[in-house]
């Protein structure tokens, strides 16, 4: 229930048809700038839960959150009794805004030609009108690291909020990390390589050559960036400057233990700040990764183990990493098939196989905020942070939980997603 002390504002509420678990909608044009969610259980994720607390949102930020906080005059009040306030969830890897329909090539904008494209920035190609954005945020996912795929270096990934009129408006960090992969023996099939059409010897040779190329490329880029006023300019090498200076993290989309060992050697050579992503083989190096403080973006857990790996290998490896002291976050790796909204259920699967539930929640909120260098802005319910948060009737890891209200940058999101709209439309179809 939402009420506002300014009675006239009620008229601006566009109330949706009553839906199970869906909330009344507010038109974007009628947004108030101050909200108070009262009487709710606040789950800040960085500290203890607060029972019967109030969260005040003003001008896009969390102004106050706690038990002794009261709603300011003029605020639109959301009665949070029996409900919970969580920080918005962060998907640390998907193709948000770059894909629309899997089988339709015109809507697939994720893969550039060639192997080395560090000069490409996905933020320039994020479609703010993608229908996936409202569908995803409806389940409390408010931010995503979206990135390209294919080749050896894909360019920069963008950390975006799932709201905004333009890509730049959506960006929390438009160039949040450089994205690379590391050559893999065989590129598929069995754990630790193998499979594919080539013989094992040929696969190993191909991989070896690709590794050499990668080293050479980075050597050349480093040399270029060491020169003052190089002529002619090389935009690709220049784009690697921040990563080679350790100012920008490098995401490595890898799977196997062998690839990870390769990444560690590469990181030593070029002093890279590494974030591993996917990395299903990382359990075998958990202690090393913990000691080197290399975070791992795990997932998607909606995957089968490679080859003859244990049946629960993909579900259990996040727990193994976390227990060893590795900072983990989750990705859905969604490639336009609408799975990013299931981010919390990836985390849930990990809790069934050994990951502590509190850590699982952190791994979709504050951990990614820290990994992506934005913990001062998002990832927890704390005064001063950007008001990316949602109100639900329970644990977001539980599929049965209903998300009631979603705020991004202090704005209450309308329930204007394609799925809710289609549901309303067809549920009211008269009997034939």
């Amino acid at each position, binding site marked *: 229930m939402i009420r506002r002390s300014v009675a006239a504002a009620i008229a601006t509420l566009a109330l949706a048809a009553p839906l199970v678990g869906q909330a009344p909608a507010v038109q974007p044009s009628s947004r108030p700038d101050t909200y108070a969610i009262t009487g709710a259980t606040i789950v800040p994720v960085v500290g203890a839960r607060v029972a019967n607390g109030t969260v005040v949102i003003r001008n896009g930020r969390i102004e106050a959150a706690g038990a002794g906080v009261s709603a300011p005059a003029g605020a639109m009040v959301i009665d949070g009794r029996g409900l919970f306030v969580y920080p918005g969830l962060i998907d640390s890897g998907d193709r948000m805004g770059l894909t629309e329909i899997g089988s339709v090539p015109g809507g697939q904008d994720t893969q550039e030609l060639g192997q080395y494209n560090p000069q490409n920035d996905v933020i320039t190609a994020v479609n703010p009108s993608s229908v996936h954005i409202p569908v995803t945020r409806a389940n409390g996912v408010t931010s995503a690291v979206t990135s390209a795929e294919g080749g050896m270096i894909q360019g920069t990934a963008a950390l975006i909020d799932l709201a905004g009129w333009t890509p730049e408006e959506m960006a929390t960090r438009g160039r949040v990390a450089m994205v690379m992969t590391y050559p893999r023996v065989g590129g598929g099939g069995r754990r630790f390589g193998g499979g594919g059409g080539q013989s094992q010897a040929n696969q*190993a040779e191909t991989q070896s050559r690709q590794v050499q190329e990668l080293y050479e490329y980075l050597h050349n880029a480093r040399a270029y960036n060491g020169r003052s006023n190089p002529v002619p300019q090389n935009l690709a090498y220049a784009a690697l400057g921040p990563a080679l200076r350790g100012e920008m993290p490098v995401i490595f989309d890898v799977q196997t233990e062998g690839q990870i060992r390769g990444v560690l050697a590469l990181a030593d050579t070029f002093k890279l700040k590494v974030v591993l992503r996917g990395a299903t083989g990382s359990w075998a190096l958990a202690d090393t990764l913990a000691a080197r403080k290399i975070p791992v973006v795990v997932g998607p857990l909606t995957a*089968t183990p490679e080859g003859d790996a244990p049946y*629960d290998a993909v579900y259990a490896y996040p727990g193994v990493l976390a227990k060893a002291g590795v900072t983990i976050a989750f990705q859905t790796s969604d490639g336009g098939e609408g799975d990013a909204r299931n981010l919390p259920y990836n985390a849930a699967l990990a809790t069934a196989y050994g990951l502590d539930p509190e850590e699982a929640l952190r791994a979709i909120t504050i951990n990614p905020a820290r990994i992506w260098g934005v913990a001062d802005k998002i990832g927890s319910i704390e005064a001063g942070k950007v008001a990316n948060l949602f109100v639900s009737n329970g644990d977001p890891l539980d599929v049965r939980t209903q998300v009631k209200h979603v705020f991004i940058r202090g704005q209450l999101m309308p329930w204007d997603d394609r799925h809710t709209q289609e549901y309303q439309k067809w549920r009211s179809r008269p009997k034939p």
Partner: protein
Amino acid sequence: MMRIALFALPLAAGALAAQTPAAQDTTRRATLPVLKVDIPPAGTLVAITNATVLTASHGTIENGTVLIRNGKIAAVGKDIAVPAGAQVIDGNGKYVMPGIIDAHSHSGSEGINEGSLSNTAMVRIEDVLREDGIGLYRSLAGGVTTLNILHGSANTIGGQNAVVKLRWGLPVDSLLFAGAPPGIKFALGENVRRTNVPQIPGRTPRYPRTRMGQEELLREVFTRAREYQGEWRVYETARRQRGKEAKGLEPIPPKRDLQLDALVEILEGKRLVHAHSYRSDEILMLLQVAKDFGFRIASLQHVLEGYKIADEIAAAGAGASTFADNWAYKLEAFDAIPFNAALMAERGVKVTINSDSDERARRLYQEAAKAMKYGGASEEEAIRMITLNAASQLGIDKLTGSIDVGKDADIAIFNGHPFAPASRVEMTLIDGRVFFDRNKAPTLEALIEALKRRTRPNTTSGGAQ
């Protein structure tokens, strides 16, 4: 007692990248202790005690006992005496539900698309079934006991499906579900049109290329089937007549046609139709064709736009077997909504949630919970969507699909409520036999422990290739 090696674990197999950092994998070459699965003997007396029993048919029983005798459920309830000599499974803190039935799977089949003709009604999954696909074991570990293994969707009539129980470790013939009525896969829409696969230059495209062609093809083949059925009726009548009068020439039987035999079985209501379909228009088309030829569609598979025509589906008595929330992977999946299952159920359609994937099959319980989230299905309705309703669509609901006396003891045991986030499958029983037991299963944890133990230098010999 049979023993099968689930993995022989030469850890470094395949990692051969010499002179690269990846080559360090080869240092891990060693053989782990072989992890084994024990196949339990049949016919034992088993009691699952003190558990929360989600029956799928008559509510939830707290502190309940399920008694199993000779593979069948002998008793279920609160105050069931455990007979002496019974193997007791302590269900304290555990949740027991019927074994999950996946109404759409391709697991364990060596091939799923014949596809060279638009009607391949004569080909059979059971002829290409394998018992050793790892996907079967992993589904079992997700509480699945029965699969409906279907052909693909490359052609209008794909072939005859196989309903199997996941009796992992037994020979392939032991997998077939005795008593399951035969079925067949139909397909409509984009996949049949081959719009999402590259056309091979020089090869003539296969008819039909459109949805209207699919409609015509169905009418064509069922017209042929009726004629063929008529020829056989004439023959049978003549043969009976001759038998009565004991004179005249022996009538000549029509030429046996395996393709048309399967279609005649559909016309006679002996073969269940499972029809891959997405858009509301093509679904209505199929329902009309089926009505005109006098058969029923046992299940519309995928049926992602079923919510638009739920009343028509209900009126036709067709089942609906859908995804929980997959969408947007192709154009005909763009109108899919996660409310589909609950909305169809609300309008009286018997709904199931299926996997169509070795991945989703491992966590169908999580998928089923989405019917509660989106559209407000009740808990028992959501449980039925992966158990009893699936049994009904496959014509095996007298045998399995719920925890009721007399049914096969196909059961999944969870460490918490199947819909709760931290729950996982602890045991899977088929016909009362424990085919999966997490305590004995080769888990990642077990592998890590084994790796720690095998650091001794004299264990590095042998077996890596």
